[in-house]
Every structure is written in C-alpha cells, then in structure tokens.
C-alpha cells in the first residue's frame, strides 16, 4: 500500500531540521529557501505549521501543466515533474492552493518527490510532526486522538450525573 506523508502541526517544534535536510539532500547545500518543505510560523503566537506538497488525489498541478510534464509515480504515489518536458511556465506554482510547488532564486521549480519513497524530512523530524504511513493507520490515529478528547468530555458528564 502506498504511504502518505502526514503532517501533524501540533507536534511541530519549529526547529527546521526538515528544511535543512531537504535542501542538503536535493540541492547539496544548506539553504531552507531551496527546500521543498517549509515551516510557516507565527512566532508571537507559538504556531508552527509545516507546509509541503500533499500529493493531491486530483492534482491541480497536473491539470494546469500545459506540457503534461507532471504525473504520478505509481510506486511511491508522488507527483513528479518530468524535467525533459517542463518548460518552466510556473503555472503549477501559481495554481497550487497550498504552495506545494515552489520556486527558488535560480528559477528552479521545487516540488517534493517523497525522496523516492523514503522521505528524509520524516527521518529528521524528531518530535514526529511528519510521519509517513498507511492511510488506514492515519485514520486510526486521528480517530483515537479525537476520541480521547471525547472521552474526557464523557468523564465530565459522568461526574455531573453522579
């Protein structure tokens, strides 16, 4: 089963190890402005949200690409850009609603390729804000977290009725 790169912003500590590892792996330099992932921060409120391509099921980047250069890698599930076909029109950058496709100062298109099925950002994310897992595992985890909150509510209700 293809895995999904799952982001849990509540766990992110904003350390940017994902950004550094990504740029070092893909561009061979340390430079977060050339990473495929970015932690968007509201420092004064303590909010850190990692933003990365979600490998959409209906990928707008694929639809708008006039060259048909973007397609899904069946092995990993990643949407990949075929460098031979890409003309650098940047329509994917313009239309992606999540900022999932970026562009660096050398006008190079930056897009997460899931590191060929073994995403490095996940390995470097020690707090576990980034995880790579099966869809059904995600469901179970999310529901358990939500249920925990509900269970607390239930406990309170029980206390009241007692």
């Amino acid at each position, binding site marked *: 089963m293809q895995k999904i790169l799952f982001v849990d912003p*509540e*766990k992110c*500590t*904003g*350390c*940017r*190890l994902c950004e*550094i*590892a990504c740029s*070092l*792996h893909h*561009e*061979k*330099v*340390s*430079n*977060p*402005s*050339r990473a495929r992932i970015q932690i968007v*921060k509201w*420092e*004064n*409120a*303590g909010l*850190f949200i990692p933003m990365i391509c979600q490998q959409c099921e209906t990928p707008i980047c694929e639809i708008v690409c006039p060259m048909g250069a973007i397609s899904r890698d069946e092995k990993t599930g990643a949407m990949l850009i075929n460098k031979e076909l890409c003309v650098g029109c940047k329509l994917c950058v313009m239309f992606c609603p999540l900022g999932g496709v970026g562009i*660096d*100062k050398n006008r190079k298109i930056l897009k997460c390729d899931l590191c060929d099925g073994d995403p*490095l950002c996940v*390995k*470097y994310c*020690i*707090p576990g804000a980034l995880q790579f897992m099966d869809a059904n595992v995600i469901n179970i985890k999310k529901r358990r977290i939500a249920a925990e909150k509900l269970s607390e509510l239930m406990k309170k209700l029980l206390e009241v009725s007692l």
Partner: protein
Amino acid sequence: MYLLYNHLVPGIDPLSLENVLLVGAGLLTGIPALGSGRCDIAAKSPITGAIGDSNIGGFFAPEMRMAGFDHLVITGKAEKPSYLWIHDGEIEILDASHLWGKDTFETQTLIRSDHGDEEIKSLVIGQAGENLVRFANVRTGMKNSAGRTGMGCVMGSKNLKAIAARGTLDVEFTHPDQLLTYCKEMIDMVMKNRYSRAASKWGTLIIYSTTNTTGLIRTRNFQLNQLEQGWDIEPEEMDKYTIGMSGCYGCPVSCRHRYTLKEGSFAPIFAEGPEYTSLGAFGTMVDCKKMETILVANHLVNKYGIDTLETGGLIAWAMELYEKGIITEKMTDGLRLEWGNEEVVFELIRKISQREGFGSVLADGFKNAIAKIGNESEYYAIKVKGMSNLHSDERPTPSLALGIATSTRGADHLRSRPAIDLYGLPEDFLEEIYGGSMSSDYRSYKGKSRMVWWQELLYAVTDSLGTCKFQTVFLAVHAPKWEEYSKLIYLVSGMQYSIPQLMDIGERIYTIERMFNIREGFSRKDDALPERYFEEATPIGLPRVKGLKIDREKFEKMLDEYYTLHGWDNNGVPTNKILQKLGIEREPSQII
C-alpha cells in the same frame, strides 16, 4: 576572541565608542544537527570590565550566514538610533527612530513589517539596552537571549537597536551527502540519552528536581541551599501552562516551552521559556514558590531585554540587605523588599529597565551598586569579577565552585560546568573521559581542576563551532565531543584536526580570553569565590551536603593545579612556553 583581543585598546570605557562589538556564526552553522543556530556576541563587558561574551540560540546565525556574512565587527557609534539590515550580500545602516522605545517583541515585528518579510531574523535590544542598563541583553525570537555580560548595553551605547538578517544564499559543505548521513547519527546519539529526552518535555527545568532535593540551590539569596516546600515550581507544573515545545535551528531536542498565562494582572501572556536559571532567579533566590511568578517575571525581563540571572541575583541581594537593615524603604522608593513578594519583583524589573529610582542603582550592576550602598553590602553579593552567579550553591561541589571562580567572563556556569560530576560516575570511566585520575565524589577536591580545565576547552570549541552546549558533554555523558567534532569539521570543510589539535584550539581561545583579562588588570586575586563560600556552611539539604563549605587551602591548591594544566604560571599568567606552543606569542599583532 582573537578579533576582540586585536581590535580593542586596553583600558577603554566599555560604553565609549572605542568598544568593539563582534557578532559571529560558527564553522558548523547550518548543519542539520546539534542545534547549529548558535551565534556569539562579544565586546568588553560593561558589567565586569573583563571579556564580554554571550552565546545565543534561535535562528539568527544561520540567517546571517545565508545573507552572506559569517562575522560582523561593529566599531564606533551611530549618530542616531539605527539598525543594520543584512540581506543577500548587502549590508545597510537604516534609521531606527521608529523602533526606539519599543520592547524586544515589538521591535522584531516592526522590522518584519518594514521589509514585508516574515522570515527576517533579528538581534534586538529592548528599553533596558537603550537605557544602558549594564546587564541589558541581546534577544532574538520569543525566547533566545545573549543574556550575560551586558552585550545589549554595548549595543545601546552604539545607538544600535537591532541587527536584522534575511538570506537565501547557499551554505556549502565539502562532503554534503556524508554530512547529511553523519548528522542523523549525531541526532540519534543526542536523543539516545535520557537527559535530552527529558529536556524535550520539560526543558532545563528538569535540573531543579535533582538539585533542589539534594540541596544545591541558593535560596533567599544565599541563606539557604534548598527551597523548602518548593514543589509548586517542579518542572511537571509547567504542563498546566505549556502548549508545546519549541526548538532552535537544527535542534532535535526542542527544550523551550511555549506557554500561555490566561489569568493574573499581566495576562494574557504568550511567551517562551523559562529556563532553569529563571526558575532560580525569580523563584528560589527571592523565595517565590509559585510557577506563575516565574512565568510573568520571565516574560517581563525578556520584553525589556535584561539578563534574567543578573536581575534575579541583584533583587535577591537587595532583599537580603533590606532584611538585614542595610537598606531601608527610604532608599527603595518605599518598596518593601520582603522575601517572596512577587509584586516587588515585577516592579523592580520594570524600575531597573526604565532606570527609575532604586532600579537605577541596581541597573548599574554589583560593582557600582556596592559603591552607592556601602562596603558592608559587598559580603552579601554572590558574584565573581562583578557578575552575579546563578542560583546554584557550589559549596558542596568544589569542581563547580572552581568553575565559577576561574570563568573569564565572571561567575558563570556555561564556561566550564562539569555537571556530570554530580552523577558519581565510576573513577575509571571519569579518567577515560578527562584523561587523568579524579574522585567520583562530587564533594571531593581530588582531580577536579582537570575536569574544569577540560570542560573549558570543550565549551570554547563548541561555542566557536556554533553548536549547542546541551548537545555535548554537559548534562549527558554519551554526547558528541572531540572525535565527533573532528569528523564534522572534516565533512563541512575538508580540514583535518586530530583530538589534541582541537584541544589546542580550545586552549588558544581560552588563553586569549585570559590574556585579554590580564591586559585589563585582572589577576589571580579575581579568580576568587565570594567570602560566604568559605565562611558559612550549608544549613540544610541531604545529609551528604549539609554543613559543607569551601576549604580555602584546598581551593587554592586546586587553583594552582588548574593553572598548571592550562600552562599558566602561579599568578594565572600564560607562560611563554604555552604561548609559543599555541602560536600566539606575538599577539596582539594587529591592534587597530
């Protein structure tokens, strides 16, 4: 340190335009491990007159490096409030009149909106730096401070409100692929130890549980060595206020709390911290037993931009003087400086920052305040070279005591603290680490000079590389040190250094700091502990730490051994032999 030694004329007033401010990134800045976002700020200190040097985490150093600058040397003084704007190879001096009078948080927000870029990282000063509070600090982000030695005061004296950076240039390494793999090994090594994992949850506050239970914490200034009934400031108490942790650049540990305070006269507050030092500064030393007090005080000192530790140390000292009747309400503007009075603590923080009344007396630091209050007050001041010690009581621990006495920048735990001495590790294991025999009992003097010397060299190298001290041999034993540093240096730069060569670099840095201080008139007599360490025994604590004080004779002997290890003579002056070995016998060679 080399630059400072060479750029400064001896004997100058630290607040004059002859003082030089240095801001530096390190060789490992930007690697994906070890908290590679550390930045070093140095100048002659307005508190001590000795070397001023403070290290700050956060995100500034890598941003400056990606903006194309590794080191800044700032001389002279601006005519009007200004800030430096560094971006992709450019550096500009901009008007800061709209930032003057703003606190450290507002200043950063305003600079970001000036340039319409949320990714800008700035080093800033608050109102305290503008008002030339001697221990004003330099801050970045919500949490990070270059707290010690008054670097914010030096910035204020230069009319320099901030240094802002934004960079998109590449930081290149010689062996990027190997570096990436090796950094993961470093992360795993750091996270394998229990200290790092606990710090990921409660930050440096975890130290309190052990030190307070044992009796190693100064309380009511220096009257007790344990905060009795201090359970409400145990680290777990933070769980009530925290919304999650926060990490500096390239750090897997993330030891910073993000917290909110929804009630109280200062609410609502969103802030980061507090560190173990703030817990002592506004908790144990002033005898406040509530976490909320510490959280508010931590926020206030950060907002105004003053050193948490110096502030707490001075307030605790003033409270003891008030108790002893050495100062009265006449001098304190009517404030009743009673133990545990949080309102007084908050008010004094504000008064110090604004230099108002009695606050202005304290704002000048121990040396000047003693001159104003009277010599009688000096005995109660827990300071070395004019700078306050943290809330740690070193009477039962000779190694830690020697460390604060010899620290080049004044009483300080971050120059050498061999905290692993407290673990009672087997002696053969200690010998393996430190390369000489020593007692495993933390109350012993045997071999402890070697511990301090070794840690001084290690921390000098760590600071110089631009990585975090919490990720080397500090509170954890199995952590990256010489061997790992050597490999990292090779992978980023291709330069090959053996372990002895790296230790020599540490020795060179520390010896230059020593020479700087000697040139400013410091000598063996300044490597001294406060008198109370020799006169008063610890009144409480576990049986093994109760009733202890520092033995003067043994301490002096330890100091002799320590000098010998450094290759310095009996007065603490580096010998020609060591200067030649380190290749610095002609320094300073290029005074400007």
